[in-house]
């Protein structure tokens, strides 16, 4: 893609074929024009640059850079214009200082240009004497220029003399001068800052640049520049010190000395002020970590007040954004919102503040407000803010489960190319949400090519490979990342990701080692390594250790949803209902309101047999977030527990419409089919699992589920083989889930002892029922009664029938049994499938 940029016209055009999109500085409008119009518009400006192989983001960025450069030069030259009166120059100085503050490149450009040729001293002197200039960058530059004119003249004469002696045409001299200007050559020599190393670099760069020019003997010419200019290198030498003394001794010296010292003092003051602000921000963060919210707020107020007095609104807004971002990391979203709103109040023209507000609203789940603020970001003239806004809108749609709409919006953000990796990463995540793993991988690949410094993109690739079950490749990519991305933050992330991957593969020893390393590198607010560690323990079947890690993590992080959710999940999946209930009761009220905690509460109520309350919670959630897959699957689960199989089936199918690859919904549909006495579709359970070579916990889980299906269709031998595979895996967390089914298979095959052994230690309802059946068949009525009693304790509604069948057949010992053994097996399998 080719683009034209003119700083003086404030225009950029991105050319596509015979048409172009025209962008004007400080305007969000984009106008479609023909190429002829573009040529006509740009040909009246003499500063048009042509950008090859560019994109929208780079073009817009260049437009603003060139605009600032053009503005700076004309503003500065206007300062030296003796036809403009002093009064009229003040606003120009202010504006120039503003530009310099925001755009150092423009300042450097101006220095490079203004040090190239000598200036009439009288023009500088007249403006320099004015006291209003004090302590400004403009003043420093003018002062430096004033004092460097002799040196500038020397450099200019030497350069011209070399070109003359080398018989360079004026075109060629101009070209070389242009190269040297861009390298800061004249500025460095003019201001006596050039040393031999700089000169050597210049020589090599000149050779490189002139290689393709038609300057004969460019190597000798470059060498000549180096040799002759070496006499003017001064930095660090006595000459430099003398130069400084000269400045001090010259006319107007007392005034100038004052301004130099003031400038120096200002620089030092600025640094001090910056350090002070950083120290205060650090203290505020500490207070937040300790949950001392009011003191943190007080300190923030003091900081902002002092910044408003000394540094201005912009700096205050920056600090507010910084602490608001930290509040977000601590899940203190109300505070994040409060501070980001204040930031936008202080600096309404700073569009970043609106991004922070929108983000806070997303975290507070107020998507309508979030949308409003993301849309404000779209109005910014800065392309980065626009892209952030657009990505934010896509984020909202993603959170609502509207993946196609989210995709449309992110494509819009990426339209014309952007210079930011974040929207690409977002797109990759969105594709992963929809199971489009290859496409997601390609995006990560693209990002890691374009942003090789970005470890996150490489880890994204590894994560997709793991999702694709290419575990070896994933591990290799993580190990590559470990070698190449060395910052502690990146190392922490990679150790944690690799550690978790190894846990999924059952390699628990190495997994824990890596996770421990990650924990050592992690910050207070980064709980992912700790949660991964707990999860690894859970997979390993070490629930006590998992609980210990989670409780330790929870301490001091009472507002971290992820920790709360994982702890509740651990308790519920482990059948520790009263613990879960107690833990939930003690949570802060605001924490109970989060969506994920509400889902866990619903599960808890379901386990307690409070189906209506459980369903009510999920229905409320569903009304607000109709495509929240986790909630929808949970809803289906409650419905099936209530034996409302048709409704449950519809709910699972609705989930599959959002994500056709969703494993829970796929299995749910098959379980419902079985409940309706329909043949179960094995393929929808296997999906992408390699049955012959299982590796991960997900593989074994699918094998267990497939084993159940095999039993249900009468392939008992096959089913047993599969269930044995699970039993022999290192994932003890899965054993409890499938032991009852394994036992059932053994029983069907006449292997009574093995059947009993498989469920002897079972502590879940299906296990107790299975034990009751075995004891019943053996005529051990008391033991059977005892087991059934255990099963009746907190059993879900859908187990009522099988409990009744077992009681009727083995406990009450009716002479003419109503149910055959096959009937009981069938009902047991139905229950097991539903429970799975």
């Amino acid at each position: 893609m080719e683009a034209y940029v003119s700083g003086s016209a404030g225009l950029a055009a991105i050319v596509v074929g015979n048409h172009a999109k025209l962008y004007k500085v400080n305007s969000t409008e984009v106008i479609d024009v023909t190429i002829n119009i573009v040529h006509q518009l740009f040909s009246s400006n003499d500063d048009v640059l042509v950008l090859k192989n560019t994109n929208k983001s780079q073009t817009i960025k260049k437009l603003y850079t060139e605009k600032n450069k053009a503005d700076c030069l004309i503003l500065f030259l206007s300062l030296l214009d003796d036809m403009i009166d002093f009064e009229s120059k003040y606003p120009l100085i202010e504006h120039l200082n503003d530009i310099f503050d925001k755009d150092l490149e423009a300042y450097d450009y101006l220095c490079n240009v203004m040090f190239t040729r000598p200036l009439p001293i009288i023009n500088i002197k007249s403006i320099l004497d004015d006291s209003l200039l004090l302590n400004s960058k403009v003043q420093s530059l003018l002062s430096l220029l004033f004092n460097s004119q002799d040196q500038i003249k020397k450099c200019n004469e030497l350069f011209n003399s070399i070109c003359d002696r080398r018989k360079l045409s004026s075109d060629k001299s101009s070209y070389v001068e242009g190269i040297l200007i861009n390298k800061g050559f004249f500025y460095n020599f003019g201001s006596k800052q050039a040393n031999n190393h700089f000169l050597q670099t210049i020589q090599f760069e000149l050779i490189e640049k002139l290689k393709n020019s038609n300057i004969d003997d460019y190597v000798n010419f470059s060498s000549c520049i180096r040799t002759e200019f070496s006499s003017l290198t001064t930095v660090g030498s006595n000459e430099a010190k003398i130069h400084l003394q000269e400045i001090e001794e010259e006319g107007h010296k007392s005034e100038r000395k004052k301004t130099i010292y003031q400038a120096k003092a200002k620089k030092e003051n600025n640094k001090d002020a910056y350090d002070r602000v950083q120290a205060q921000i650090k203290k505020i963060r500490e207070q937040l970590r300790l949950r001392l919210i009011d003191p943190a707020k007080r300190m923030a107020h003091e900081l902002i007040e002092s910044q408003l007095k000394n540094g201005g609104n912009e700096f205050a807004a920056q600090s507010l954004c910084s602490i608001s971002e930290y509040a977000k990391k601590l899940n203190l979203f109300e505070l994040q919102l409060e501070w980001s709103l204040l930031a936008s109040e202080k600096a309404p023209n700073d569009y970043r503040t609106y991004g922070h507000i929108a983000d806070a609203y997303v975290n507070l789940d107020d998507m309508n407000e979030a949308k409003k603020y993301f849309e404000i970001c779209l109005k910014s003239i800065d392309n980065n803010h626009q892209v952030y806004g657009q990505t934010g809108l896509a984020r909202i749609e993603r959170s609502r489960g509207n993946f196609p709409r989210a995709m449309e919006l992110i494509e819009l953000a990426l339209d014309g190319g952007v210079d930011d990796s974040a929207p690409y990463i977002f797109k990759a995540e969105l594709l992963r949400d929809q199971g489009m793993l290859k496409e997601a991988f390609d995006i990560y690949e693209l990002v890691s090519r374009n942003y090789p410094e970005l470890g996150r993109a490489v880890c994204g690739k590894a994560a997709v490979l793991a999702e694709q079950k290419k575990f070896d490749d994933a591990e290799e990519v993580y190990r590559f990342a470990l070698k190449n991305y060395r910052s502690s933050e990146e190392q922490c992330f990679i150790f944690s990701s690799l550690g978790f991957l190894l846990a999924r593969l059952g390699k628990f020893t190495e997994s824990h080692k890596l996770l421990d390393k990650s924990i050592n590198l992690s910050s207070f607010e980064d709980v992912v390594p700790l949660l991964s560690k707990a999860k690894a323990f859970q997979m390993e079947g070490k629930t006590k250790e998992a609980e210990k890690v989670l409780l330790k993590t929870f301490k001091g992080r009472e507002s971290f949803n992820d920790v709360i959710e994982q702890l509740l999940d651990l308790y519920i999946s482990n059948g520790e209902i009263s613990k879960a209930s107690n833990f939930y009761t003690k949570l802060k009220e605001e924490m109970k309101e989060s969506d994920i905690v509400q889902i866990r509460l619903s599960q808890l109520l379901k386990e307690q047999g409070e189906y209506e309350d459980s369903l009510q919670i999920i229905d409320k959630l569903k009304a607000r977030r109709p495509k929240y897959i986790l909630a929808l699957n949970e809803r289906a689960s409650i419905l099936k527990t209530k034996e409302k199989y048709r409704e449950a089936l519809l709910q699972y199918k609705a989930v599959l419409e959002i994500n056709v690859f969703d494993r829970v919904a796929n299995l749910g549909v098959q379980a419902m089919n079985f409940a309706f006495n329909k043949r179960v579709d094995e393929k929808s359970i296997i999906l992408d699992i390699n049955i012959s070579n299982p590796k991960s916990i997900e593989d074994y889980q699918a094998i267990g589920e497939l084993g159940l299906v095999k039993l249900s269709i009468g392939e008992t031998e096959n089913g047993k083989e599969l269930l044995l595979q699970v039993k022999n895996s290192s994932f003890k967390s899965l054993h409890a889930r499938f032991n009852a089914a394994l036992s059932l298979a053994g029983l069907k095959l006449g292997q009574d002892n093995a059947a009993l052994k498989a469920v002897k230690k079972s502590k879940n309802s299906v296990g107790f029922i299975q034990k009751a059946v075995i004891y019943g068949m053996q005529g051990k009525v008391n033991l059977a009664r005892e087991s059934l009693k255990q099963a009746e304790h907190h059993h879900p509604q859908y187990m009522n029938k099988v409990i009744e069948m077992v009681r009727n057949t083995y406990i009450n010992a009716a002479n003419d049994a109503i149910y055959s053994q096959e009937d009981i097996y069938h009902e047991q399998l139905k229950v097991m499938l539903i429970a799975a």
Partner: protein
Amino acid sequence: MTTEEGLCKSCNTPFNNSRTLCDVCQSDIGFPNVRAAIKNQKLLDDRFKLVMASINSRQLEVTANNYKNAVNDASVVIARSMTSLLPMIDNSNVLLSTFHHQVASNARLAENNEFDPKREAVESLLHPFYYKDVHYAALSLDSVGIKYYGDVHIQFKDNLIKHRTSFFEENPFNFVKKHKIIVGENIPGGYSATWEEKWKLALCKSHANLTSDLKSNDDFKNILVVECEKNPDFIEAHIFGTIHVACINKVTMFSDADKTSMLLFNANKSKFSTLNIDTEVRGM
């Protein structure tokens, strides 16, 4: 001057069409763009006759006459950004010419990415060999040029440009496209005019849009210049030769111009005044 046969009146020898002086005797032979417009005058007159017939049949003679008077009072205006305007108008400023024209352009030149406008093909059809000496502006009734080109509008003093200005029906790119003219073909006659005949060109172009209710300059300004973002339509003024600051009559800005432009405009006000240039800031 020149004869109808294309000879220099002083030495009676053929002259180079792109020159202003005869190569042989150095006598003044006028400006090439104006000579070309004079050459086209008959074709413009032929076109004008047909237009007048239409105007008469619609009984719009009075409106046409009003429009003629308005166009005769119209001025030539060029729109630029202030940042590009100052170096253009301030030819005598040594600092501008050194640092803005030379040093800054050398820096750009070294980047090897200078713009090479593809205007020649179309513009050389109109002004062969001398298109680079022509400045392009708009004929305007309200001292405002085409906003598309910049937020500073420079109105020229008639007496310093009228002898070297010709007018063309519209933007040559649009014209070439509309008339399906390909490179190598001539531009059809009747679409250009001298200063004195510009009203005929304007009437030929816009007569279809005239209605009896149009009376004042305000009524006519949107007929003479149709501001449309994608493709503004206006009568293009072609000014031969350099534009000296003394040629500028007035500089107009709109209050929504960017900050740098507005600051430079305000800072240069006294300078404009010294140079006898009127200034005006208009609200949106």
